């Protein structure tokens, strides 16, 4: 076709509603896409379909009642969310929790991170069309959920951390189960690599896709594995250690290739790191109380308190403004998914629809975390 002929063909951008009910938006996220052919020109996320007003609800709840609600925000890193709220309240009250609590909280955080990354892995495979990964990932996640269920009594919304400590002590069977799981998963994780990571189709689909350089990552506040894949050292566990992280040695998984494959590999590496952290802690849980008795009515001294933890998706922050009463005056959750979503447009502009799906699943968005 000559150039003159090509000019005569009129092309037109068109709008496509991806969502709210779409298989790869993992919830009720609606993306308004401007497409030209297959090329994505503009992504406009419309969110709020499951906005539940958690921040408003927290203003009328007492402090011990808040952690149960945060479970329902980012349900895949429920324990980290609880931990953030509990740490914030404990810091404000000046309560020092026993080492036993710190150790157990850290083990649970890492187990939760593993479970979250397993689910992310199976969903990532499924988004790219490898449907079998979904079942292998869930199969392994089930083992962690069993550990949770035995100790906390719930599988997803754990409500295990409470201000001042833990809901229960660990189950007597906990150590054995964790060891069992670690031995099991050490054998299964290489399978993940064989099935997906090494696969030439997967590599082609992800390498060099959705490149997002370090400056942009910091500018957009993209944290967690997605940020670390662009060389942004943003691991709260390293920079602002909390709970038992000062006692363990681990590597922050960093990558500087900035693409979807890097985001994928950072998460796989984090799974190995999480296992090593659990291994360091599980046999050294100190004896002691599992909670500090707080007053019947918890009242935070007047002031502002900010606490960050590293959730499975990134930098999760709790900001409490207290006026000295039994419930917070204003409570804000800095959810990692929210900031990560804001970068989706910049990340996926100019790529194809299929790449948009890959980029989106490499960001690991959880919609209740975004909508709150």
């Amino acid at each position: 076709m000559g150039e003159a002929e090509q000019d005569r063909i009129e092309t037109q951008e068109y709008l496509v509603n991806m969502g709210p009910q779409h298989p790869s938006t993992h919830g009720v996220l609606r993306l308004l896409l401007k497409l030209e052919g297959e090329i994505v020109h503009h992504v406009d996320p419309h969110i709020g379909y499951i906005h539940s007003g958690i921040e408003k609800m927290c203003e009328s709840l007492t402090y011990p009642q808040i952690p149960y609600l945060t479970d329902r925000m980012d349900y895949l890193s429920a324990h980290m969310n609880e931990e953030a709220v509990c740490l914030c309240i404990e810091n404000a009250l000046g309560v020092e929790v026993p080492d036993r609590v710190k150790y157990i909280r850290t083990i649970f955080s890492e187990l939760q991170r593993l479970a979250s990354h397993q689910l992310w892995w199976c969903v990532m495979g499924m988004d790219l069309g490898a449907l079998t990964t979904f079942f292998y990932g869930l199969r392994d996640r089930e083992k962690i959920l069993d550990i949770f269920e035995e100790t906390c009594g719930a599988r997803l919304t754990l409500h295990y951390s409470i201000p001042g400590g833990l809901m229960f002590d660990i189950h007597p069977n906990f150590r054995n189960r964790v060891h069992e799981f670690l031995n099991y998963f050490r054998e299964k994780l290489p399978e993940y690599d064989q099935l997906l990571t090494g696969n030439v189709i997967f590599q082609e689909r992800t390498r060099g896709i959705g490149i997002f350089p370090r400056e942009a990552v910091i500018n957009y506040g993209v944290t967690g594995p997605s940020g670390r894949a662009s060389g942004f050292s943003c691991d709260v566990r390293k920079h602002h250690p909390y709970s038992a992280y000062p006692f363990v040695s681990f590597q922050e998984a960093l990558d500087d290739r900035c693409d979807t494959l890097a985001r994928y590999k950072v998460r796989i590496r984090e799974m190995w790191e999480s296992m090593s952290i659990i291994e360091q802690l599980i046999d050294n849980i100190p004896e002691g109380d599992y909670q500090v008795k707080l007053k019947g009515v918890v009242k935070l001294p007047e002031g502002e308190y900010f606490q960050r933890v590293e959730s499975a998706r990134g930098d999760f922050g709790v900001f409490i403004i207290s006026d000295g009463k039994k419930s917070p005056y204003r409570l804000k959750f800095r959810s990692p998914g929210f900031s990560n979503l804001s970068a989706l447009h910049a990340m996926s502009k100019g790529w194809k629809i299929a790449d948009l799906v890959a980029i989106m699943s490499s960001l690991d968005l959880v919609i209740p975390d975004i909508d709150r």
Partner: protein
Amino acid sequence: MAFSIYDFSSFTQSIHEGLSNRLSPAGTLAVEWVIVGIVILLFVAVFGLFLVYAERKVCAFFQQRLGPMRVGPWGLVQTIADFIKLLMKELIQPARADKFLYNLAPFIVIIVTFLAISVIPFAKGLQAFDFDIGVFFVTSITAVGVIGILLAGWSSNNKYSLIGAMRSGAQIISYELSVGLSLITIVILAGTLQLSGIVEAQRAGWFIYRGHIPAIIAFFVFVIAGTAETNRGPFDLAEAESELTAGFHTEYSGIKFAFFFLAEYVNLFIVSAMATTVFLGGWMPLHFGNLEEFNHVMDLIPPVFWFFIKVFFVIFLIMWFKWTFPRLRIDQILTLEWKFLLPINLFNIILMTVIVLMGWHF
């Protein structure tokens, strides 16, 4: 009426004679058409439903699941129940859809599969039409199916459908080349385009064995390109559910959706049957050079069974691909075709020609 499970030609011949004794030649032809039509219809329905069940079970076992277990023993009646459900569902037509084309599209897709099935030799004499250009007929008629997909996508008045249809068009037009060329590689060896002739030519040994290196390469190229042509496995871009929800059949419901669904599985059968016929010796039993006893035992298994055993082997291979690999992107699919499969194929044809000319084949 002489009937043998090893040779159906006498059986079909006797039906033909019986009919022509009673009816005029035109009447005979008409009745035979009807018989052939009903047989193919039944075959498509039963085999399609069975393949859906088989796919569910196979994929379940790949994924450490049990698959359907509730309806009937081991869920055997599950697909029939699903089919009844689809029959009873409301047929929804999107507003501002092109009504005529929208309703026509599923029929084009399903009719093409009927046409393609009619030339497949199931066993000696069990073949509806024995063209002397059988290979050519199958490759060309399966390519017509894409028109149905394009129409479905275009007429649905849905952007996802349109994208899916356009992808499918680009993909099938490209992969048609590889399918054709890999079949031609064997046609060079066989020296005929007639499917029954190709099968007969493999009496001395399957072509995948007789043509050795180029035939094996051609076999794999054919399986890959065939998977792409049926919109399956890693090449299911036209309906890529994580990108386009359901691609070209997003707007179809009830029995019209069932047509697309059934056609996909019958296409899978056609590709496998072609691979079997051309590469794996069709209904010829497995023979090893001079193991007389073994060959004799193999001869006892009826040709129809041989045909289906081989077909299921190829189907299993294609399902294995589908349930292991991630999906390709549209430009990668075209790259795979034009940069990898096509050059390999062309080189392979030259290799095969040289081998045939020099007589280096078995």
